[in-house]
């Protein structure tokens, strides 16, 4: 696997960190509460595109929302717009996964001209009492959490997600990093993840593709259709044999969808 470049971008007097790799048309990837890892999906994407994957504020040693004085979701969205400006991405394709999907949809609703194409993978941001997102899943012990996040809990992918470094110091670092990303994102999701996106989605002008694992155990697949109903002209792609991380669980299939969607005009 190639190593992406870690760029440090000055935004609002602090340094944002962004992983960048590949050549070609730029595409932004916004990660979810599991944190940013340079995974096979991004690696493959970087063979065709120039991928920009920012770390969420607080992760990888960057300043947390409170330190950046981001007091609410609106502040956060405008912070990301500033970051995209700093990267020279005035209008760009954005892929967002889970919380990153919510963030991408918020950016595209707030600043519709900013986003050309939008791919939402298992996105947070909506709420329905009949099939609620259980945030407490994310704080449950691994044996309870894994079946909600992975279609196959015995897959190497699932096992890798709960394997921690042996070295105690590395281990503590990894635990803290995981905790910080989750805590910082939960700050925007708590206690009910719809912060008004539902009333803003109609503003999206981006060509939108909604990708969802058929068996998503964290954000049920019915939300895919809820997003579709609200986003003008959007389409849905349901991925069989996948839960909350379809882009990794069914890499080639999601990659094909991504690639052909980004290519269409």
């Amino acid at each position, binding site marked *: 696997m190639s190593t992406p470049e870690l760029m440090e971008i000055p935004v609002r007097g602090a340094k944002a960190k962004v992983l960048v790799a590949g050549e070609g048309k730029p595409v932004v990837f916004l990660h979810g509460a599991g944190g940013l890892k340079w995974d096979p999906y991004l690696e493959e994407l970087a063979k065709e595109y120039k991928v920009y994957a920012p770390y969420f504020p607080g992760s990888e040693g960057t300043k*947390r*929302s*409170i330190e950046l004085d981001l*007091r609410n979701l609106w502040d956060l969205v405008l912070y990301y717009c500033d970051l995209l400006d700093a990267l020279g991405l005035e209008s760009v394709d954005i892929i967002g996964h889970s919380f990153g999907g919510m963030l991408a949809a918020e950016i595209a609703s707030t600043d519709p001209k900013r986003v050309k194409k939008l791919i939402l993978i298992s996105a947070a941001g909506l709420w329905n009492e009949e099939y609620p997102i259980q945030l*407490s899943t*994310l*704080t*449950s*012990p691994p044996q*309870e959490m894994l079946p909600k996040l992975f279609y196959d809990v015995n897959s190497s992918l699932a096992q890798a997600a709960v394997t921690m470094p042996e070295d105690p110091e590395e281990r*503590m670092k990894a*635990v*803290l990093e995981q*905790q*910080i990303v*989750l*805590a*910082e994102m*939960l*700050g*925007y*999701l*708590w*206690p*009910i993840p719809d912060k008004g996106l539902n009333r803003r989605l109609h503003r999206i002008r981006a060509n939108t593709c909604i990708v969802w694992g058929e068996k998503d155990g964290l954000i049920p697949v019915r939300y895919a259709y809820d997003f579709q109903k609200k986003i003008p002209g959007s389409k849905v792609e349901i991925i069989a044999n996948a839960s909350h991380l379809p882009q990794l669980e069914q890499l080639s299939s999601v990659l094909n969808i991504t690639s052909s969607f980004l290519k269409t005009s």
Partner: protein
Amino acid sequence: MKFVYVNILPYRDLPEDFVDNHESVWVTIPSKLYDSKKGHQIFNEYVSQYELAVDAGFDAVGFNEHHSNAYGLDNSPNLMAAMLARKVGQSEKTCLVLVGDSIALYNPPIRVAEELSMLDTITGGRVIAGFPTGTSMDTNYVYGIPPVELRPRFYEALDLIKQAWTRSEVFPFNGKYTQLRHVNLWPRPYQNPHPPIWIPGSGSLETWEYCVKHDHPYYHLSYSGFEAGKKFAESFWEYRQKNGKDLNPYWLGYNQMIFVSETDERAQQDYEEHYRYFLRTLMHIPAKYAEAPGYRSAKSVAQSAVSQFAVHGKSRYATKEDFSWKNLVEGGSIIAGSPATVRDRLKELIKTLRVGNITSHLNIGSMPHHLAVKNIELFSKEVMPYLHDIWDDEWPVVGWPEVANNKLNKAALAQSSV
């Protein structure tokens, strides 16, 4: 030496098999397990116990705040305190301790400043304020505060309340979480400038820093008892000393469960099953509710300080086989026995931990009213009077209303007026 009577207000009638069939005693406990007639009865019994504690000469009666649980039914400490306020005001020296109000949950938090002013007014200055950050179950899971916002909200609320109590002009408050154009507190607190403020906490360094910087007594919220308390108290006093602060024991408050009976054996017979109910049932809280991500700062997580409610997904007390009564008593989780045993053990604790305030938990778990009354009476007649004068030859009282002053306070006052 000061003793505060505290009753968490447990719901004492959960079924035997509760732990096997329900995930948690907090947050998601089904309301069908609550019987309103029993609730009516126990609430009235609990208020009677508080009244008894005032008559029995406790230095204070204290109240907590919890939500959506059977562990402690006190949703509103100020409401409970209000029921006792007249009696307290007319007593010889008893005060009200709110240990306390989860100020991050009030919107606007000025409400707490107002209510405590009212209580302070009606009691003629007998109120001690206590402001905890609150448990993750209460604040995050039930009251919906995002975990990472809890502490910033708490400190902002504390700042607002202190300003409201101390500033005499009408002023605007432009906070991150609360914006008020006109802060203008009526009535004012009876005490000048305001009731003493204790900060309850469970050992996090940030809280000590705050207490030392602002001269607030620290009240250690733990049920782990004497042995575990030694290490904690040692570092607490070391921390104060390092920061150039005095070692007056009244800067520290400590939680202790106490069971007094005629003899040591009788104490076990009387109280064990009721304490077991507390351990087994009322502490049945899964890790996922005990600590939402962001509830503690990364710094505290790194120190691996563990929430008193969360150890490996279950209450640390969940397996009853692990802890014999003998172990629990010897390890100091509880102080139990005859009046003489309890006196000796408590004295040792007070001296060893260097603690000036003990919040005495005397109604615990499923204890029926008559046993709680027995415990309160034996403690107040056979134990408390023998320990009351500890420290008073050495240290003036700090962090209490004037009525609680000792001879050293009075001597200092006389000296300064000469």
